[in-house]
């Protein structure tokens, strides 16, 4: 009876954690057996997404990020987290007066959330950028664009990753 109550308690704790990690979008596997390490893992992931939030805030200086103009194309399901193709494009002609100065790709759950930070000179055409990225498990990817008039635009995309890129880091 007591053991059952203990199990219920840890279940509740895990649920509170997952509710807290709204931004992190953690998908916790709720199995029948709960171990301390699993809770520690959840807490570590929570801390990582916290780091992401701090980085996000520092980067945008808490200014408003409008979820328009920037488009992200990434597979909904990636078999292998080591190399996930990412394509980004930004609306607009990218002239000297109005262009993307900086493009930042952020991950919510990677141990180091900054994937890449890129600077562009006016490309005179619709800006398209492609790369291949590493992902530590299923998560959301943020792409933020800083325009030449210092406004932030962005887009977010979720990816399901079957095989995580860094198993060691998430333990």
């Amino acid at each position: 009876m007591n053991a059952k109550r203990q199990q219920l308690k840890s279940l509740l704790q895990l649920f509170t954690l997952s509710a807290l990690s709204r931004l992190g979008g953690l998908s916790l596997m709720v199995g029948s057996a709960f171990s301390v390490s699993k809770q520690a893992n959840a807490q570590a992931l929570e801390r990582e997404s916290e780091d992401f939030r701090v980085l996000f805030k520092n980067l945008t200086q808490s200014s408003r990020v409008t979820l328009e103009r920037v488009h992200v194309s990434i597979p909904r399901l990636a078999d292998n987290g080591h190399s996930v193709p990412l394509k980004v494009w930004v609306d607009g002609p990218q002239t000297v007066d109005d262009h993307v100065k900086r493009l930042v790709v952020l991950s919510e759950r990677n141990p180091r959330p900054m994937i890449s930070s890129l600077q562009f000179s006016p490309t005179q055409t619709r800006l398209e950028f492609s790369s291949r990225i590493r992902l530590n498990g299923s998560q959301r990817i943020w792409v933020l664009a800083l325009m030449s008039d210092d406004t932030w635009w962005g887009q977010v995309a979720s990816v399901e990753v079957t095989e995580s890129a860094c198993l060691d880091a998430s333990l």
Partner: protein
Amino acid sequence: MTARIILPPNPKAGVKMDIRILIQHPMETGFRYDISGAAIAKNVIKSFSLDLDGETLFSGELGTGTSANPFLQFSVILPHSGWLKLQWLDDEGNTGLERVLCNLSS
């Protein structure tokens, strides 16, 4: 370390083109261990830049979230023909340089 700057076959003046960059680099995350259990030091390409005759077109900083052998592609209308120069620097202090001549036909 080698790199390639891949240009479209017949680049035309005033027409949008995609420039692709491929750099051979392990992009060690620092989270892996070798067979004896020792941690492998983090070694990623910290920064890179692509210049056209000394004028920077595209530059950036990469993190551990970029895959091994980084692939970067972007679209641009080049203002004129010239030498495209790619330079990069990694955590171990190694630098790399690759140049390619881009002749725009009208």
